[in-house]
């Protein structure tokens, strides 16, 4: 088995902040907008270095999305920043019409996605944003797994022409992908080869999937682990190839099992190669207050849950 080691836990939103800072230095067209959450989005450094390229919109997310769309018309590449709920559900129709349908080059950058935002509770813990954004034609949906990958993704989306949804989180999590990685939008990454089942994970669940694979290995089960950082466009090839070999799959995401990565994978399989699948995801409930670890545990979003689901899905082959 390949070894992955945590280079020191960091929050993925800081990866975004680092990427944005670098873009500020390298790409004069990059501008940033925020709806009264600069610190949470780690935008301080970009703002300090490029005050004239920063737009503080106040608590008015709909307006922020429209302004971002308008800025593209002057050739800018706007990065909007707010919490994931206010980046998606709050402004769905604005993104739909002024950004997606108008094909504007806006990068919607969303922090505090999922239950791991912790104590603020359900009103802030969106578990539907992947589904919301994946349904929009032309939208790219990315959920990187750690600090390094979030930074790399932030740099990569500036070079992609068209709307992008970039989702990241609040808590400190293992940082284990290479600092110098090249982020390829839409290309899943094979992290661990295996033969008994495939685990396809995104975001914070990728590290958990690697941990699960270790446990499974010691239980005599060989799990293939794929990091699907891009939910749309979905890398069908890597999934189908893996499932063609393993014949069973577990999907893992910090999201409702309705509408998210799991259903996208189920659809691809139903169309191409129907396969037993188990879903690691929240079970159509709202979140709640608690620490990230408590919530991952209560809502079945950790390595232990992946191990159980893996053992179950193998039985169903």
């Amino acid at each position: 088995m390949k070894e992955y080691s945590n280079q020191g836990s960091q929050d993925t939103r800081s990866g975004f902040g680092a990427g944005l800072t670098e873009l500020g230095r390298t790409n004069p067209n990059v501008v940033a907008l925020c709806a009264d959450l600069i610190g949470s989005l780690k935008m301080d450094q970009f703002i300090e270095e490029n005050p004239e390229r920063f737009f503080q919109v106040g608590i008015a997310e709909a307006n922020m999305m429209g302004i971002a769309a308008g800025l593209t018309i002057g050739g800018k590449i706007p990065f909007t920043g707010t919490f994931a709920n206010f980046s998606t559900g709050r402004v769905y129709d604005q993104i739909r019409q002024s950004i997606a349908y108008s094909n504007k080059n806006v990068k919607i950058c969303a922090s505090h996605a999922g239950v791991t935002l912790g104590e603020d509770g359900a009103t802030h813990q969106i578990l539907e944003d992947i589904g919301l954004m994946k349904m929009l034609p032309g939208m790219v949906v990315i959920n990187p797994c750690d600090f390094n990958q979030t930074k790399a993704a932030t740099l990569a989306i500036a070079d992609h022409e068209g709307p992008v949804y970039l989702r990241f989180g609040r808590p400190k999590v293992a940082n284990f992908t290479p600092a110098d990685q090249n982020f390829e939008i839409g290309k899943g990454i094979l992290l661990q080869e295996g033969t008994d089942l495939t685990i396809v994970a995104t975001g914070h669940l990728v590290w958990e999937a690697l941990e699960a694979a270790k446990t499974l290995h010691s239980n005599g089960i060989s799990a293939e682990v794929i990091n699907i950082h891009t939910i749309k466009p979905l890398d069908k090839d890597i999934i189908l190839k893996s499932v063609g070999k393993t014949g069973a799959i577990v999907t893992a995401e910090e999201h409702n099992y309705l509408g998210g990565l799991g259903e996208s994978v189920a659809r691809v399989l139903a169309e191409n190669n129907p396969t037993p699948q188990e879903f690691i995801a929240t079970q159509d409930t709202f979140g709640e207050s608690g620490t990230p670890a408590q919530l991952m545990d209560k809502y079945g979003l950790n390595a232990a849950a992946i191990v159980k689901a893996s053992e179950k899905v193998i039985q169903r082959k």
Partner: protein
Amino acid sequence: MFNKFQTIMRKKIVEILILLYKIKHMSSTHSMQDIVTQVRRDILRMVHKVNSGHPGGSLGCAEFFVSLYNEVLDLKEGFDMNGTNEDLFFLSNGHISPVFYSVLARRGYFAVDELNSFRLIDSRLQGHPTTHEGLPGVRIASGSLGQGLSVAIGAAQAKKLNNDSKLVYALMGDGELQEGQNWEAIMYAAAKKVDNLIATVDLNGKQIDGSTDEVLPMGSLEAKFLAFGWDVLTIEKGNDIEAIVAGLHKAKGMTGQGKPICILMKTEMGNGVDFMMHTHAWHGKAPNDEQLSSALAQNPETLGDY
């Protein structure tokens, strides 16, 4: 007809209330102030324990909540969701849940001990108020800003349909007024003459990223509400119980006259804790152990800590 009679009656009642209040005043202000001090302690201890939550706005509104729940709202015993024949209160800026929870508990909606569970897993005292866990006293979830005024309007219109003459109160943050939904609601309430509604703005001039002037200067809110057809009243001393009670009673007297009422209440974020005042820094940050000690020392126990 009924409405007119109602208005006159309400005015008379308000006059009597103000009189009663003034009589009660010398003895009762002290005890209301005691509650405020205790509520401050609750807020500080709650957010300190879980190292999260929003002390700044909570402390700034402590006098308002205590006045509202102990002197102004006409409440039934117990709690039911519909709140027929009682005044209703809606908190739109849900992040100041600590002050809401403390005052609800101290008013008897649930055991004061339960404040211990604030923001813990499996708690009814969620980070932002919710009905989902069945906490008595809460009628709507808030937290995503900008939604509470619309809900209060709906509840007020339901009261009218039900010939329920009690009033509906709401509280919003000033930064929160940057959300467009509020202006939809403000326009609507005036257009539809929702005059059984008193909406208070916590005018502390601060939000997360700085002062409202730094973030998004909002100009005169009074001019805006007036232009949108509301009656507006300012409470200059929004951390003074007497001023708040007088303002709220005055607002009560203005209801029933075809216009919704807005109270612009000037408060100090972090009020009552010296190092939390005159800054936006404590909007959403909990004190550490040392800071807690200092803050509590400034607010000695009055009704007993939970």
